[in-house]
């Protein structure tokens, strides 16, 4: 047995370059349950990060009693991370679950039956549509529902009501990944594969603390590092993360300066002549513009802006310029920071310059934050159209109208779909009066919380919240709908490297809770949305109908699901899209042929100016004549709009810890995870702590122009001048409101977003820190992660984070050969192209 709180990544199973990552099956069963007691194992995949680890749920007497990783799956080869082991079922099997709908009566939420709740929603919806039209309606969903649910919601919003105001919290986590791929390649679609980790010589992690955000993927990297021919690692992160500890080069740059660094890396690659001239000539457009844009950015110029040595920038560029096989991963350090899309496109540009795409060990992984974010992007319940269709292309709108049998005029396509921050602005201004929030908790997760709370509390805003628990957001609702959670419903979802998994229903939801799909279908039925023939717009009876409908929608598009069935997903590995007649076993990596989806009739977007977000438009896009070649796009560096000054002298950034997910609605209900990271903290560098008279565990007040938090300080290895707070700690378990000592990191963040991806900035603000109370013990921050303490000389060391009896998992190795693409999928067919 292994303590998987103390040992987040589990036991090493080293392997060498081009080898197969060995199988290690991780398993946890409830106390007193032996394997022989389990009635059945139900196939699923984990929803507590974007990695998409396949698992089986142990069921006994109608309850989930354990979990194990699926050895045969291409994603995780049997492994699970601490969140999957200790919060997947614990996060839903909790006494706090909502069991009945609630409606607000005389200011109080009271229990009611489904008919009462739905009738209230439908009455309000109908009244508003009659009085003020579709633009009065907004939908804010999640990165944690299933594909079938997003697609239902997309059809309701886009073909039933006809509102452009639909987005998900995917805007907060993954919008820039999609935007960067659309700008560079013409459409969304992850170029790389996790199998590229197996074959690479160098691994660049750009603002990606993989060790904590995708712990199982990091295990794969650790196993390469422990092997005979480890890849070189370059880490861009202001914190001393586990990734940084293993890095050959660690660039601890100032928050808000990513693009300056990226310009210098691109410039250095070009200046040294490390680009692949043939690849650039045959497969790209726009090198001259790129060269001109990066010209001023010598390593010295970037070093001055970023606060790292020029020699380190050169070292990183040399590794990029001279390694034979390079994988880059990008996440929130880039996506949630200034000039997010431009910085992330520069990662794509580096790979295009060196032709590092579409071959083993050569790839980009523009990551996602959430397990099903990819499906929201595909299905169009966010700011996209279903099937990666282009809202500026009338033929694509016509296709959708034909598919749904509705008037194309119904489908809002006169402007880009409204992004989340703008939806909340319209709600603030009172032009959106009906807001339906599903499976997300903006009262904790959105920037500048004092403002968000005011919006949610507006008396004339009719707020529907659909969730597992009475979240901070649900407390503002007019109607609360209890949703079924993971393991309580059936559906599919797709991870960050396009692998589609099926999650089967294992147990019944508590009380009267219903699946999100059933709730959406019920609303559609009651609203009597119809096709042009007068038939029901959504005539699906369950998830498999929805999946089949989605397959038609995806046909011929980059995310083609037509070769996948529920049956093919049961028993074997998940299958990576596109899976169709040409690729019957799916597709491990894209763009092996160097042909990109930039054909103007096919592309998902005509692109934007990366500085302003101005749309390029069809005519100008066609004039570029990209025709299957990728686009070098960039923008001039611009310093962050809020920089440290006399009043707010420190840079503030936020993020995750390995032990929690989002606003802890699930992980906060797991004893081992809560014990490991029980309460909020803020990380301060030793130098800053000494200057400010702060010791480990002291209560400090962190203040920005928006608000304050008051939490214990962890003196850590973060870059001096920067402080970090985890964003998980809202108020559902501490009285519901901020109280005397607010803890939510987003009390301090500012309302601003990237001009292209519209992703809000969580990684850059100016703050001041002051001590307001003496320590009563060390800060409640884990010692096993980036928050590990930097002990002052002569002080008592902080006790190491460990899980004890409740955090033991079995790890079984060497049971079977490692899965390999494409044989791992069930009914793998001959003739498939890898």
């Amino acid at each position, binding site marked *: 047995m292994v303590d998987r709180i103390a040992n987040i990544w589990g036991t090493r199973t080293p392997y060498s370059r081009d080898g197969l990552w060995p199988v290690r099956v991780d398993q946890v069963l409830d106390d007193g349950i032996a394997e022989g007691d389990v009635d059945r194992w139900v196939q699923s995949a984990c929803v507590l990060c974007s990695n998409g680890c396949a698992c089986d749920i142990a069921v006994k007497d109608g309850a989930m009693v354990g979990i194990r990783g699926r050895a045969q799956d291409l994603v995780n080869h049997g492994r699970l991370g601490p969140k999957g082991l200790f919060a997947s079922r614990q996060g839903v099997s909790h006494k706090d679950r909502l069991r009945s709908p609630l409606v607000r009566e005389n200011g109080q939420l009271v229990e009611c039956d489904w008919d009462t709740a739905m009738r209230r929603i439908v009455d309000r919806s109908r009244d508003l549509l009659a009085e*003020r*039209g579709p*633009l*009065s309606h907004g939908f804010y969903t999640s990165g944690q529902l299933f594909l079938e649910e997003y697609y239902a919601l997309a059809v309701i919003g886009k073909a039933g009501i006809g509102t*452009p105001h639909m987005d998900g919290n995917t805007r907060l986590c993954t919008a820039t990944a999609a935007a960067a791929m659309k700008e560079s390649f013409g459409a969304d679609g992850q170029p790389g594969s996790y199998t590229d980790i197996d074959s690479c010589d160098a691994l660049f992690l750009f603002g990606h603390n993989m060790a904590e955000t995708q712990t199982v993927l990091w295990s794969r990297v650790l196993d390469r590092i422990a092997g005979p021919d480890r890849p070189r690692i370059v880490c861009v992160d202001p914190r001393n993360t586990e990734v940084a500890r293993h890095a050959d080069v660690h660039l601890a740059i100032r928050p808000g300066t990513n693009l300056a660094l990226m310009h210098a890396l691109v410039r250095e690659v070009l200046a040294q002549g490390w680009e692949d001239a043939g690849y650039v000539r045959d497969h790209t457009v726009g090198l001259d513009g790129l060269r001109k844009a990066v010209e001023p950015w010598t390593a010295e110029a970037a070093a001055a802006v970023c606060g790292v040595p020029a020699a380190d920038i050169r070292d990183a560029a040399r590794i990029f310029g001279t390694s034979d096989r390079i994988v880059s991963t990008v996440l929130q350090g880039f996506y949630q920071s200034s000039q997010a899309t431009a910085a992330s496109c520069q990662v794509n540009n580096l790979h295009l310059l060196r032709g590092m795409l579409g071959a083993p060990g050569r790839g980009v992984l523009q990551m996602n934050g959430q397990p099903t974010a990819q499906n929201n992007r595909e299905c169009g319940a966010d700011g996209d159209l279903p099937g990666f269709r282009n809202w500026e292309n009338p033929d694509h709108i016509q296709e959708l109208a034909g598919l749904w049998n509705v008037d194309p005029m119904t489908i809002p396509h*006169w*402007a*880009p779909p*409204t992004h989340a921050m*703008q939806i909340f*602005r*319209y709600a603030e*201004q*009172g*032009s*959106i009066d009906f807001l339906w929030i599903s499976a997300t908790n903006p009262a904790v997760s959105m920037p500048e919380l004092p403002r968000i709370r005011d919006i949610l509390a507006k008396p004339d805003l009719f707020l529907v919240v659909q969730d597992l628990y009475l979240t901070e957001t649900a407390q503002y609702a007019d109607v609360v709908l209890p949703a079924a959670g993971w393991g309580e419903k059936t559906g599919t979802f797709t991870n960050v490297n396009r692998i589609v998994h099926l999650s089967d229903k294992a147990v019944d939801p508590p009380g009267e809770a219903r699946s999100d799909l059933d709730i959406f279908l019920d609303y559609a039925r009651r609203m009597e949305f119809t096709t042009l023939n007068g038939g029901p717009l959504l005539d699906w009876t369950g998830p498999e109908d929805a999946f089949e409908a989605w397959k038609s929608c995806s046909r011929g598009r980059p995310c083609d699901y037509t070769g996948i069935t529920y049956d093919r997903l049961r028993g074997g590995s998940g299958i990576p899209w596109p899976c169709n007649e040409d690729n019957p076993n799916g597709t491990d990596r894209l763009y092996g042929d160097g042909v990109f989806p930039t054909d103007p009739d096919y592309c998902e977007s005509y692109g934007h*100016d990366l*500085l*302003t*977000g*101005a*749309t*390029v*438009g069809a005519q100008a896009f066609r004039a570029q004549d990209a025709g299957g070649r990728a686009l070098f796009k960039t923008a001039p560096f*611009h310093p962050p*709009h809020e920089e440290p000054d006399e009043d707010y002298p420190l840079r503030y950034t936020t993020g995750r810890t390995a032990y929690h997910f989002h606003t802890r609605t699930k992980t906060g209900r797991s004893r081992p995870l809560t014990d490991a990271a029980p309460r909020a903290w803020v990380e301060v560098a030793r130098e800053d702590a000494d200057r400010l008279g702060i010791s480990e565990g002291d209560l400090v007040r962190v203040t920005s122009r928006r608000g304050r938090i008051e939490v214990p300080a962890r003196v850590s290895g973060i870059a001096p001048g920067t402080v970090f707070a985890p964003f998980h700690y809202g108020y559902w378990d501490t009285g519901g409101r901020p109280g005397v000592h607010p803890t939510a990191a987003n009390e301090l963040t*500012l*309302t*601003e*977003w990237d*001009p292209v991806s519209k992703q809000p900035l969580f990684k850059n603000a100016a703050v001041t820190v002051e001590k307001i109370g003496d320590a009563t013990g060390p800060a409640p921050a884990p010692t096993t992660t980036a928050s590990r303490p930097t002990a002052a000389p002569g002080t008592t060391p902080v006790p190491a984070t460990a899980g004890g009896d409740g955090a033991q998992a079995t790890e079984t190795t060497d049971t079977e050969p490692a899965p390999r693409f494409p044989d791992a999928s069930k009914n793998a067919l001959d003739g498939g192209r890898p």
Partner: protein
Amino acid sequence: MNLNIYLGMLRQAENTLAESFRQVAEGHGAEPDVHFLCRTLAAQCDRHGELLHPVVQRYGDNSSDNEPERLHAQGLATTRNGPVGLLRDLQDLYLLASLVDVTWTMVKQAGSALRDKDLLAVVDQCDAETATQLRWLQTRMKQAAPQALVAAR
């Protein structure tokens, strides 16, 4: 040679646009994209003025031309409120930027006739940025218009 008349007009128009961008940035602080981008674009206009400086030194800057002003483009003195107010302020910026854009085009024509490579290099950089400013304004206005004109209270 009358190029100095157009250089004077251009400098004036860039200056007016810069001031108006700043005005809108300050007046619409609750729209962070408008606020921050208008500040960035104001700085771009300032830079255009600086790049024009050596050209003006060579050709002069005649603001006392004998063609009287018939169309007054004096910039935004104040901003408006609310969703329609935002739309109209952006539309005013669009008109001012259009004036800058077409003036650059005329200066480019003259620069071509003069075979003045230095002037043409300045035009290339600045006019491309002005074109992007126009595209951004149009993008943002198209986004705002349906809500402002149909749904706003």
